[in-house]
């Protein structure tokens, strides 16, 4: 039982380790700097969005619109390049993502509606706006050389994207574990009533979490657009599911109150490693789907059915679970 509990606690690490081990055995030449570089780069888009979503999920909310925000920010950052120049346009793109997140946050906190349905709606809205402003045509940036620079590899391991992702994960880890606002996010997600009674402004925290999630989706979208020199309204349509899966595999609870940056890193890397390994073996996409779906189900079922700590009483005071019970319970 003790070993099981321990195993469960570090399940992300174990799954990641297993993935790497099996990959190394099956895929020739898997262990190497190239793979590391690749795996990181492949994971970084999902990872950067996952950082935002980790915070949001810990706060007990969800955002299905990140894929659309990803596209919208990218489009904005490309379409404004001729007027503003590359970097200012990129900043505006990220701001657009934050704005989109702020809209989500404002509606969820202000109207006290369930974030699941609300962001389902804004997912449609933001995607439509991206189509609207581009007339459904992909738009291309002004300087292709810049794209090449952005996607260069440094020290044989990092691209700008993956370095940014890793740095952000470290920052997120520090923020979540070492700062007062970070801890307050946990408090709001775990027991909003208790948090509120202790004077924590839960509404503001939720709003800012949405804005952060939107901003991170914006960063990822802008980077993607810079790397490909293209802004397309169809980008990122498959991303949301992958990101949520990565975060949940990383042990962040969908109902809020639990989660960690390192777990998310583990989840993201697992998915990255899995993808790269399976692609190296030319495993068809649908089999990849089956594998990642099974891992997801396995992990959440384990999480639900095996209780880590035996013998302790039930959890105190019913925690408010906004995702399952609606956002307006304050």
């Amino acid at each position, binding site marked *: 039982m003790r070993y099981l509990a321990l195993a469960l606690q570090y399940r992300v690490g174990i799954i990641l380790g297993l993935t790497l081990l099996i990959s190394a055995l099956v895929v020739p030449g898997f262990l190497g700097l190239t*793979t590391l570089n690749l795996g990181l780069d492949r994971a970084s888009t999902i990872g950067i969005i996952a950082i935002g979503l980790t915070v949001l999920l810990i706060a007990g909310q969800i955002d299905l619109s990140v894929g659309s925000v990803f596209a919208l920010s990218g489009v904005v950052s490309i379409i404004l390049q001729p007027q503003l120049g590359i970097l200012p346009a990129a900043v505006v793109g990220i701001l657009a993502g934050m704005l989109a997140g702020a809209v989500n946050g404002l509606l969820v906190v202000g109207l006290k509606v369930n974030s699941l349905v609300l962001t389902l709606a804004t997912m449609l809205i933001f995607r439509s706006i991206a189509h609207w402003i581009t007339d459904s045509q992909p738009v*291309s940036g002004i300087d292709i050389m810049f794209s*090449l620079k952005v*996607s260069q590899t440094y020290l044989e391991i990092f691209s700008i994207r993956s370095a940014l992702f890793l740095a952000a994960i470290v920052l997120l880890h520090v923020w979540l574990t070492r700062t007062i606002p970070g801890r307050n996010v946990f408090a709001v997600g775990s027991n909003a009533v208790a948090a509120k009674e202790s004077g924590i402004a839960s509404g503001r925290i939720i709003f800012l979490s949405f804005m952060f999630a939107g901003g991170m989706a914006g960063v990822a979208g802008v980077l993607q657009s810079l790397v490909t020199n293209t802004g397309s309204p*169809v980008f990122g349509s498959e991303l949301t599911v992958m990101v949520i899966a990565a975060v949940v595999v990383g042990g962040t609870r969908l109902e809020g109150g639990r989660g960690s940056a390192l777990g998310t890193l583990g989840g993201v890397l697992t998915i990255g490693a899995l993808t790269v390994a399976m*692609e190296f073996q030319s495993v068809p996409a649908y089999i990849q789907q089956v594998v990642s779906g099974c891992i997801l189900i396995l992990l959440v079922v384990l999480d639900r059915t095996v209780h880590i700590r035996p013998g302790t009483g039930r959890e105190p005071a019913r925690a408010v679970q906004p995702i399952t019970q609606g956002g307006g319970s304050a």
Partner: protein
Amino acid sequence: MTGNKFILAMAAAATLASAGWANAKTVCYVNAADSHAYATPANEALQARAKELGLEILSLSQDFDVQKGTEQLNTCVARGVDGIILWPLDPQAYIPGLARAQQANIPAIIINSPVSDDAKPFLKSFTGPDVYEEGEMAADALNEAMGGEGSVVVIAGQAGNGTTLGRVGGFMDRLKETGSKIEVLDTVNADFDQQKALVMSRDLITRFGDKIQGVYANDDTMARGFIDAWKEAKPSEKMPPIVGINGQKDAFESIRVGDMYATIVQSPAEDGKLAAETIAKILDGEEVDDRLPIPLTVVTSENVDSVEPAF
């Protein structure tokens, strides 16, 4: 120069990655999807032909997700493969990746869909059918069927999708180019989905009624949706000429019974085969043309019995 160092690093990485691999040349094939009516037979043909030619194919599936594809292109470059076959889903987004491939001295070709001219310097060849050309051929066929004038509706695929862009763009440009008097009443996006096409066609028929004198659908699946809608709405009236693309079996059937005017056959097997052969030639150091089309055949009632359907 950083560029040199970059290439060096890449080369080192490539040796590292390919260590332990068989001596067979490895070609990275970034395909559109694994499970798709056209893509699957094309993939299979490509694989089979490559095997005959002694090439190892590393097959990556984009699953119609451009973002995934651009990253897979990086995977290919980093893997240090000997050649790349790309199935582009967007005219622009792959250019940086292709440029990186060139920096790493990996020859790349694209199949099935064109990319913008900016990409030309990074590509050895473009093989297979050209979705843009298909659009043009569809315009010609419809022009012929309607005698150069009348009003049509266009049932397009997903908004923003590369195939859609090519097939709609080619069609529109060709109409303009030839000075055709055909007027497009409306373009709707039915996402290559028969049911969606059916639903939208119902509305189009309600809206325009007999003003619809011709239909251009981005693929035969959606053409079929329009046919069904027309039969529901106006069972006794003559079907307007419909032009589709792909050359599916059931489209042939529709042409035989007169429900459809034409489809454009592109053979996925030929498509895949040609790509494999082209990359093999390039790897052997041969020069290839920068455009290697596969035959596109316009199928009408005249030749429907002599042409093989694509799938």
